[in-house]
């Protein structure tokens, strides 16, 4: 068993290495990437189906350190098995899809290798039974996201988005690193089991857990670190799918879930998590409603959904465990991968992902239309799709937490969840209506696209309409090959999984746990939200977002200037850096330079004093005698 677990981690890494070496041979690269992904998926399936719970699978042996034990174990149980299976599955789908999607891209080999490395990072994190590998996987994903988002590095926007993504998450990782250090100091070990069972300073525990929450907030895009995620849409669509579906952004949920036993003991960290999650899920859902780009809308929906997962962990009662969060993670993985790949497919057909471009383009496509429909429905939480069950499991867990003495924290989450349910239904309905209503029906109406703002005006990439220009260019310049069967199959399979995914979840304890009342309530809310949009949009002829006053909408599209705030922080740090450089040059370095100047000046002065006049030298001699005499006699003891 343990070799399977090890292979699950090692193989994708090797695939990345091999893929990098043979990146020029497109076929070989694709073959390696896809075959290894499928093999890993099979291995993960075995791990899931036949789990043997073991927490001490050796990897490279414990590190020989003084007072810190770093066993570097892997931990295998049903959760890690299931999550890695889903991750592997999504990665496999993305690899297959990419082989088609980037078939004309010169850097396909690098991309595929990076995806493999990314998968290795995620799988390491999933299998890790030790905080250090968690951190390793965590950061590897961050680095790969930089590579993937910046894939089209010819474009300024892509470079900037990649930079922003990595930097924002890395800033948040200050918390992650400090948190992990604090937790391992508390346990004198980085072993997960030791950390979970350690008893020690509760301050250290709070610091550790809060630190981890901050780190998670960065990677999972909780307020105030959320703004990198919509910008990350600059990456090719498969990259977005990968980042959003099951890996990087969801990794935070998994980490918190692994540490759930500790969180259950510490109210401060959980309250922080609850507040961040509640704010994020509502705020992101609202913004999703206003977006003018399909991919950005999906990005905001991801923010909202990730917050839902985390809110489950923040509100669920201790005895229920982290099942609800994991469950939503998995459900979300299916339908979000589906939606992104669908959006990628659609963008190839439509030549872009801006609403203006894709409006009504779904109708003539068969399988794609169905798939997107299923995806959006699952996102909205329509039964019997997986989204419904996983989300209602979360709601139920939160309710149980609220009624079971969770207090303010849990009630906040419950309220936010219900609000989010309405909003999610609303933006899903809007999206569906926009995509599916034939353009003919809307042509009579004036074009109400928001004006394109010059990129340099804010110096930001939030120029929402250009989210996937590379795509546009690619299509316009060369035309794009029609979708291949495997790629289409991937989308269909994902759609199917979205339908039946609930079955996966049942294998988790607490994975599907739907209360009748809360389910009914949420159904009502979903229906209400969808209906309201349908009604307001005049059956899809009007974009509901256009009903929002421009004054409000434009900033909303831009994420309310959070990016500007980031830039402001960046400017402040840069200004500080300039001060530092100035100080370095004019103060710190002044001492050595001053020494040199003084030495030279003293030399000059000395030269003036040593013109070679004998009487002067005599004078100095006598002065010296007096000096020496005074010193010598007075200091005589």
């Amino acid at each position, binding site marked *: 068993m343990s070799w399977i677990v090890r292979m699950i981690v090692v193989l994708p890494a090797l695939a990345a290495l091999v893929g990098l070496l043979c990146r020029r041979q497109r076929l070989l690269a694709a073959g390696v990437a896809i075959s290894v992904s499928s093999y890993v998926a099979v291995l993960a399936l075995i791990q899931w189906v036949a789990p043997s719970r073991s927490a001490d699978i050796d990897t490279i042996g414990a590190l020989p350190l003084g007072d810190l034990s770093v066993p570097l174990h892997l931990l295998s149980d049903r959760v890690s098995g299931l999550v890695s299976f889903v991750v592997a599955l999504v990665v496999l789908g993305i690899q297959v899809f990419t082989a088609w999607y980037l078939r004309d891209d010169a850097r396909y080999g690098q991309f595929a290798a990076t995806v493999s490395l990314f998968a290795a990072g995620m799988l390491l994190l999933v299998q890790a039974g030790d905080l250090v590998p968690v951190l390793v996987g965590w950061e590897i994903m961050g680095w790969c996201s930089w590579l993937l988002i910046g894939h089209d590095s010819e474009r300024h926007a892509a470079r900037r988005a990649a930079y922003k993504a990595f930097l924002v998450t890395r800033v948040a990782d200050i918390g992650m690193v400090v948190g992990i250090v604090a937790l391992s100091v508390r346990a004198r070990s980085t072993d997960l089991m030791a950390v979970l069972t350690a008893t020690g300073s509760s301050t250290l525990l709070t610091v550790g857990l809060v630190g981890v929450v901050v780190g998670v907030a960065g990677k999972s895009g909780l307020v105030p670190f959320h703004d990198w995620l919509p910008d990350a849409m600059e990456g090719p669509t498969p990259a977005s799918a990968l980042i959003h579906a099951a890996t990087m952004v969801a990794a935070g949920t998994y980490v918190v879930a692994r540490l759930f036993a500790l969180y259950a003991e510490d109210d401060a960290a959980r309250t922080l998590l609850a507040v961040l999650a509640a704010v994020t899920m509502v705020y992101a859902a609202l913004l999703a409603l206003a977006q003018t780009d399909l991919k950005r809308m999906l990005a905001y929906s991801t923010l909202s959904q990730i917050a839902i997962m985390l809110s489950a962990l923040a509100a669920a009662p201790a005895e229920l465990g982290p099942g609800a969060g994991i469950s939503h993670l998995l459900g979300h993985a299916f339908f979000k991968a589906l939606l992104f790949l669908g959006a990628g497919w659609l963008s190839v057909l439509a030549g872009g992902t801006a609403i203006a471009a894709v409006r009504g383009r779904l109708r003539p496509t068969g399988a794609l239309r169905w798939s997107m429909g299923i995806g959006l429905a699952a996102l909205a939480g329509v039964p019997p799709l997986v989204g419904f069950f996983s989300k209602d499991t979360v709601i139920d867990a939160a309710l149980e937490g609220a009624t079971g003495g969770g207090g303010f924290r849990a009630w906040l989450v419950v309220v936010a969840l219900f609000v989010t349910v309405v909003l999610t239904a609303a933006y899903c309905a809007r999206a569906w209506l926009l995509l599916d209503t034939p353009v003919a029906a809307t042509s009579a109406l004036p074009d109400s696209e928001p004006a394109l703002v010059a990129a340099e005006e804010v110096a930001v990439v939030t120029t929402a309409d250009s989210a996937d220009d590379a795509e546009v260019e690619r299509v316009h310049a060369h035309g794009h090959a029609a979708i291949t069967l495997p790629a289409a199959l991937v989308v269909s399979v994902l759609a199917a999984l979205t339908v039946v995914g609930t079955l996966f979840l049942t294998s988790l304890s607490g994975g599907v746990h739907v209360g009748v009342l809360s389910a009914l309530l949420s159904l009502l809310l979903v229906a209400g939200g969808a209906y309201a949009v349908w009604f307001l949009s005049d059956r899809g002829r009007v974009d509901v977002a256009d009903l929002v006053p421009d004054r409000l909408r434009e900033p909303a599209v831009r994420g309310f200037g959070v990016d500007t705030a980031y830039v402001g922080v960046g400017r402040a740090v840069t200004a500080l850096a300039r001060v530092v450089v100035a100080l370095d040059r004019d103060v710190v370095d002044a001492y050595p330079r001053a020494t040199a100047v003084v030495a030279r000046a003293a030399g000059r002065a000395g030269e003036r004093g040593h*013109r*070679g*006049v*004998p*009487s*002067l030298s*005599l*004078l100095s001699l*006598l002065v010296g005698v007096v000096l020496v005499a005074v010193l010598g006699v007075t200091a005589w003891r």
Partner: protein
Amino acid sequence: MIHLSLPAALAALLAGIGVYGVLARRNAVLVLIGVELVLNAANLLLVTAGSRPGTQLSAGPVLTLFVITIAAAEITVALAIILVMFRKAGHIDLTAVPDLTDDPADEGVS
């Protein structure tokens, strides 16, 4: 018998005058005389110290003779150099900035 502090005081006076002479005079010969005064102060001190009972080897007078001899040698060399100076520079003023220029042809004469 003279108290020993009297010669000592005289020696101090002599030394002081000598130092003044060395410092105040510009003429090389006068500087030499200043030095001589200091040397004589030292001689006086030596003789005085040697005159007390118990001194070993009559060291006082002997040392005085030594000093006088060395001083004579010093003065010889000094006068020779002052002579050269007078020949080359035309004066024996010690405060004058000396001519330090060398013609390159001098190099390597050694």
